[in-house]
């Protein structure tokens, strides 16, 4: 969608389109596919999250769920396919070729479009990662089909269409998008948006291999080298058990220290809303929300954050959401579990001290005795 904002006008004009029949040649398109993303031998967790979502869609449609595994020939790709069965795949399509060792758009686009054209899925899901977006855009354009990016909810309608929901421009709305007359219906979902399904030990099932059909000379782009990120450079925000975040309500970059201090006492990661990144108060890897990180902690504390939809979709998977806001009508109280209407600039230091007292080993001894 390049202009979901056109929604109100578009929905009126598209009513005619909703009636159109699916063209005959698309009627054979069946089953739900998930692209299994692996880079340097590691499957990206978003692929398993998508298997969970794909399983639900497939069950609702009463069709099969297939994993599409593309990668170098050898152990890691075979292993990724085998794992897919533990995350609910009924079968796997596999394109394994030494030319697929590094991710390159040309080779991966060819591999994925070929398999799609040959085996014709009705739904194709990819992770909205740098790799997934690079690939999804090329594949959808090659196939001339629709692609809905960064979905937060996937469902099937009564008529079997994929209903892909994503936040739309403006701060508080969601829109549901359909690809009515084209197949496959493609969607991307960001990491951590869907819950990780349980892994269930499962023997390797049916694997259909498909050739890549390229030689190195066909691929123009060469990977000269790869510089892996240092572990210390990565924040663990997306996977943290406890997250404390601050928003514009904190009023100044100095006050953001209060968020860091509380996070530090709790052994938590800290995060922020988007305006703080735009103002340069906090680095962009700390942004939580639709265009930042999605988090699923056990405890999320949001201080001075209003709770716009783009922020909400990034935190909704948290077990316990606590909102501190001076405005009792702030939208964040619509989805928080616990709310407190008070000045965060005064509450945060008090909270830090109170937690420090309760959680210090000294106080634990006291509780124990």
């Amino acid at each position: 969608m390049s202009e979901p904002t056109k929604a109100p006008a578009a929905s009126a004009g598209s009513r005619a389109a909703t009636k159109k029949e699916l063209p005959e040649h698309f009627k054979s398109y069946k089953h739900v596919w998930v692209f299994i993303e692996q880079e340097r031998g590691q499957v990206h967790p978003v692929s398993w999250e998508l298997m969970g979502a794909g399983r639900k869609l497939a069950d609702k449609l009463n069709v099969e769920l297939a994993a599409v595994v593309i990668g170098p020939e050898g152990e890691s790709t075979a292993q990724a396919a085998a794992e897919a069965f533990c995350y609910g795949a009924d079968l796997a399509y596999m394109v394994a070729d030494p030319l697929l060792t590094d991710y390159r758009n040309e080779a991966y686009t060819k591999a994925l479009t070929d398999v799609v054209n040959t085996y014709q899925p009705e739904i194709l899901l990819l992770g909205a990662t740098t790799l997934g977006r690079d690939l999804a855009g090329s594949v959808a354009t090659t196939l001339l089909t629709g692609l809905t990016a960064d979905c937060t909810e996937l469902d099937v309608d009564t008529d079997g269409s994929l209903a892909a929901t994503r936040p739309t421009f403006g701060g508080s709305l969601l829109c549901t998008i359909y690809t009515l007359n084209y197949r496959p219906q493609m969607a991307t979902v960001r990491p951590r948006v869907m819950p990780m399904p349980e892994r269930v030990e499962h023997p390797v099932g049916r694997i259909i291999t498909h050739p890549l059909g390229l030689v190195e000379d066909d691929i123009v782009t060469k990977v000269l080298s790869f510089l892996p990120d240092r572990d210390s450079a990565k924040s663990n925000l997306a996977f943290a058990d406890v997250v404390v975040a601050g928003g514009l309500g904190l009023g100044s970059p100095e006050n953001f220290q209060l968020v860091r201090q509380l996070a530090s006492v709790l052994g938590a990661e800290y995060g922020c809303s988007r305006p703080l990144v735009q103002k340069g108060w906090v680095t962009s890897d700390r942004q939580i929300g639709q265009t930042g990180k999605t988090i699923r902690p056990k405890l999320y504390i949001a201080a001075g954050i209003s709770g716009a939809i783009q922020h909400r979709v990034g935190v909704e998977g948290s077990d316990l959401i606590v909102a501190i806001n001076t405005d009792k009508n702030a939208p964040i109280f619509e989805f928080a579990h616990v709310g407190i209407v008070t000045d965060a600039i005064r509450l945060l230091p008090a909270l830090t001290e109170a937690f420090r007292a309760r959680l210090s080993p000294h106080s634990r001894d006291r509780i124990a005795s």
Partner: protein
Amino acid sequence: MHIVVCIKQVPDSAQIRVHPVTNTIMRQGVPTIINPYDLFALEAALALRDQHGGEVTVLTMGPPSAADSLRKALTFGADRAVLLTDRFFAGADTLATTYALATAIRKIGETFGAPDLVFTGKQTIDGDTAQVGPGVAKRLGLLQLTYVAKISALDLDNKTIEAERRSEGGVQILQTRLPCLITMLEATNEIRRGGMADALRAARAEVVTWSAKDAGVEDITKCGLRGSPTIVKRVFAPQARAEKATMVDFSDTPPADALIAELFKRQPKLETELATLARGY
């Protein structure tokens, strides 16, 4: 060398409001800006031109008022601006947008010289799909380098380019052939302040304005709403959770203590979990 940079005019998101009753976006009076992500693409293009010579053409598809953004781009130092505007383009999704932009870039090539490079931003702040760049590349048969943090080498004689591309676990150093399309990562440079000369030139410059027909669009059904495989079926406000948030009452306890008591009452396991976590630090 000829570089085409795709920029989009977008409403300034910081000032968007939603109508409390009708749940529609109130666009009236909202100022527009160049999509912030596109400025990194523009600066990268201008820097390459300064280094290697040549011209930078900025291109946008949008309403006639989008000429403002093109003019702004000229004040930063772009050499030429092309506005693609036609009611047939209205309501375009990604696929229809890439069709229109790719057609216009072909026409720009025929009219002003074939581009060696096409730049787009990483994503827009309104559409926000990050898919238009790859789509345009595919339609033009260009190689694509997405999420580029740095262009480390450009060899116009041998028609090769080397770039650092952000990937999930690190940085890929890629080499490919020109012409190619680059989507530029944010925060990789800072847009220059255009000089006086550029401002004067921009004020006088003519924005090349093309309708669908002018740009060489042959099949109008591939444009706008009609050319869009996706449709927006429903726009709605998110539901409040069924169960309301428990509001902490701190009339007779300090607020911090009242809040912590509520948390541990609600999730008794939390206290031991927090204690374990806190010990780790």
